């Protein structure tokens, strides 16, 4: 899949200073599940799944998600932050193979 790592961020179209803004973040990722052999034993290998999501606003961490394989394929997260100044919102997705996928959105006040 060449789409792996595509990040989409959705923020409301108009943001006012002081608003609590809800962000929806989506990343295209397979989030591999644990596989088992015929005896039901877990096959030991490095499963490729996202284990950390970091949301930063103006360089400060707002929310961190530590995730396991129980998160669905193409994970989708919602979180809030308080918009104080115009600036950049950055969401990073880190997976177990060292992949790092980033999405950014500019927060502007209209």
């Amino acid at each position: 899949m060449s789409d792996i790592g595509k990040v989409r961020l959705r923020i409301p179209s108009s943001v006012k200073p002081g608003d609590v803004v809800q962000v929806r973040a989506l990343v295209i990722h397979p989030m591999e599940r644990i596989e088992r052999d015929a005896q039901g034993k877990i096959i030991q290998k490095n499963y490729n799944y996202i284990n950390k999501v970091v949301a930063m606003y103006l360089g400060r961490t707002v929310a961190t998600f530590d995730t396991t394989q129980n998160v669905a394929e193409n994970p989708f997260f919602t979180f809030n932050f308080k918009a104080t100044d115009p600036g950049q919102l950055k969401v990073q997705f880190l997976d177990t193979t060292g992949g790092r996928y980033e999405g950014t959105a500019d927060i502007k006040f209209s």
Partner: protein
Amino acid sequence: MTEDHHRVSRRTALLSLSALGVAAAGGIMMMPRSASAQALGQNESVEDAIKRLFGGKPMKDGAAAVKLDVPLIAENGAVVPISVSVESPMTPTNYVKHIYVVADKNRIPVVTRVTLAPEAGRAFVGANIRLGESGDVRAIVEQSDGTLLAVKREVKVTVGGCGG
């Protein structure tokens, strides 16, 4: 005779007390380490997972403050939308620090741990999770003063979504 009996019981009491003390100290020492060194998701039972994460700390019923939103019936266990919102002022002195989502029947019960900062403004998180089979889904909220609030809801899963 009675004295003998007394002595033994006192000894056992002391022994068990000291064992408790060691366990408690170990629990405190382990807490921060387990968060970083051990993988968050392990193949274990819910009881073990909760013990590992919270070390037997008492949990209060959080039904008044915590709202866990999950569908009653999940047709597809591979994608179950879930959201947790907590009533909290989110000030630097009183905010929601962690939100844990735990699915009882999953073979790896811990789904996610969310760490929030006061800058979040509102303690609300949502995610799409997987559920292996019908069972309880819990949200455990850790506030900045260390109080734990727990809520759970039962979800019926038509088709399981966890291979693992």
